[in-house]
């Protein structure tokens, strides 16, 4: 698969008027986003702001009610999830969707699916090209596991790992797909301080591997540390956008989060 031009800063994902309605409820309301290559972009907002819905729209899990999504200059709204993944868009899940009854390594190997071609017949006959493909994938997956610090757990049952490590396995699975963009859905949730620092290091290292991170998070600290640009959602609208410092001091943003704190009391 050829990559589009690799100018840093070039917009690789954009949405125009992205809207998602569930019956009478407008979860996402005419959102415009522009994600530049090789920089860390974040979407934040209080609970229920529509962040995960945006991710579901971008990855093809949901079909937008209206609006357009362009990825690498191709229109992808309405395209099936597996086709979008094949174009180079990977994602992780908030509640970590690792595959059960499979080892850590096998879970990561699934990430190579869009970059490999072995079908039923080739596999059944154990043709040399099938075995070669598997060997190469095996190598690459071990390397990705080493990158996230989990190579020693390759043969363990994936769902037996502690939660923080499962997150990293899911990240490794996204990385080996060699995507241009990876959607990270609340990657820091449930991690302790040390794990969070590790995660921040890994995410900031992704652009060097040709992967642009777009993350959604509820937690301000991680986002402010590593993001180049932040968009803030509240009740499905975008209420602020810009560098972390500016967004952090935006009165509307403060009110949105304060409002949430007040509601939590």
């Amino acid at each position: 698969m050829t990559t589009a031009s690799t100018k840093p800063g070039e917009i690789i994902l954009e949405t125009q008027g992205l809207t998602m309605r569930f019956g009478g409820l407008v979860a996402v309301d005419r959102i415009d986003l522009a994600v530049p290559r090789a920089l860390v972009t974040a979407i934040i907002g209080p609970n229920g702001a529509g962040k995960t819905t945006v991710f579901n729209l971008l990855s093809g899990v949901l079909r937008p009610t209206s609006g357009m999504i362009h990825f690498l200059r191709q229109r992808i709204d309405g395209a099936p999830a597996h086709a979008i993944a094949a174009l180079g868009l990977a994602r992780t899940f908030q509640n970590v969707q690792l595959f059960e009854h499979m080892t850590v390594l096998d879970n990561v190997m699934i990430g190579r699916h869009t970059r490999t071609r072995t079908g039923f017949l080739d596999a059944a006959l154990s043709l040399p090209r099938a075995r070669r493909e598997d060997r190469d994938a095996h190598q690459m997956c071990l390397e990705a596991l080493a990158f996230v610090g989990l190579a020693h757990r390759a043969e363990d049952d994936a769902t037996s790992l502690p939660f923080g490590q499962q997150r990293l396995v899911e990240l490794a699975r996204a990385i080996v797909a060699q995507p241009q963009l990876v959607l990270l859905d609340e990657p820091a949730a449930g991690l302790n301080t040390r794990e969070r620092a590790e995660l921040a290091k890994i995410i900031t290292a992704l652009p060097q591997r040709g992967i642009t991170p777009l993350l959604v998070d509820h937690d301000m600290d991680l986002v402010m540390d590593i993001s180049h640009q932040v968009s803030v959602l509240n009740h499905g609208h975008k209420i602020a956008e810009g560098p972390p410092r500016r967004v952090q001091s935006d009165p509307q943003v403060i009110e949105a989060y304060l409002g949430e704190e007040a509601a939590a009391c």
Partner: protein
Amino acid sequence: MMRRLKTRITLIAFGVALLAAPLVVRRPYHQSIMVFIGINALAATGLNLLMGYAGQVSLGHAAFLGIGGYTSAVLTVNHGANPWLAMIAGVALTVLVAWVMGVPTLRLHGHYLAIATLGFGMIVNVIFVEWRGLTGGQSGIPGVPEPSIAGVALDTHVRFYYLVWACVYAATVASANIAKSRPGRALRAISSSELAAQTAGINTARYKLHVFVLSAALASLAGSMWVHYINFANPEPFNFAYSIELVVMAVLGGLGNIWGPAVGAGVITMLSQVLQPAGRLLGDWLGRAVIDLDVPAFGLILVLMLIFLPRGVTTSLGMLFQRRRSAGEAG
């Protein structure tokens, strides 16, 4: 890797045991049971791929055996076709039917999918019974010839045994190869989380359809062999009870385990042989006609399995050995 080496050794041992078995088992009655086990194992292998690896369900699989069987019967008896060609035609027709049926049905999940396959199986069985012009209705089609290889007719139990088990062996090796490769991983991913599988780039609808069609093709081969073996095709074996038997074989053997189908087929087929005289005895004792103990017995087995041994015999044994080994290492 240790796991692959173990599988390879077991496959070789299995092959040797298969080759040698007819030399040890000499009574024709027992040899014929081995043929029946083989035919069931072939059908169960397809079902194992569908249920064990892809996490789907089929409660109407007997229909595919029937389509293969009747195609073989009709083409060889009414049109004098070569049995091998008829078998291939049977697979082709079954693939077509499975494809057409699979596209809308595989969009369903869980109970709905189960019921749809159940309904399909019943419809096909009714067609076998009612389309008397083609199938001979309840009387069936007698006089189905055996296939021949290089002029030698496969008209003995032993020769048929080798044919059937050669196919089972090939299907088992193919399953093992598929399981440890890209499509095998994709199937297991689909059965675990279809959502994550899709966002990882797996076309889940196409994979489910392909494995459904593959399992139907294997069933078709099994059905053709059945018909050629007993030289007769009739609707009775291709019914709901048999579909359930196949599911019990796959589950009992161990879903997702390549040895499951052979083990499950072996246990259930032999049990079935015991249940027949038992049913007759019970019938005599109660002063009625023969009592069919198959359905209640297999129903009971299924329930007990799901409570006590949900992973099946082979998988549970495997887990038992692993636990002992790691206990030994730790101790």
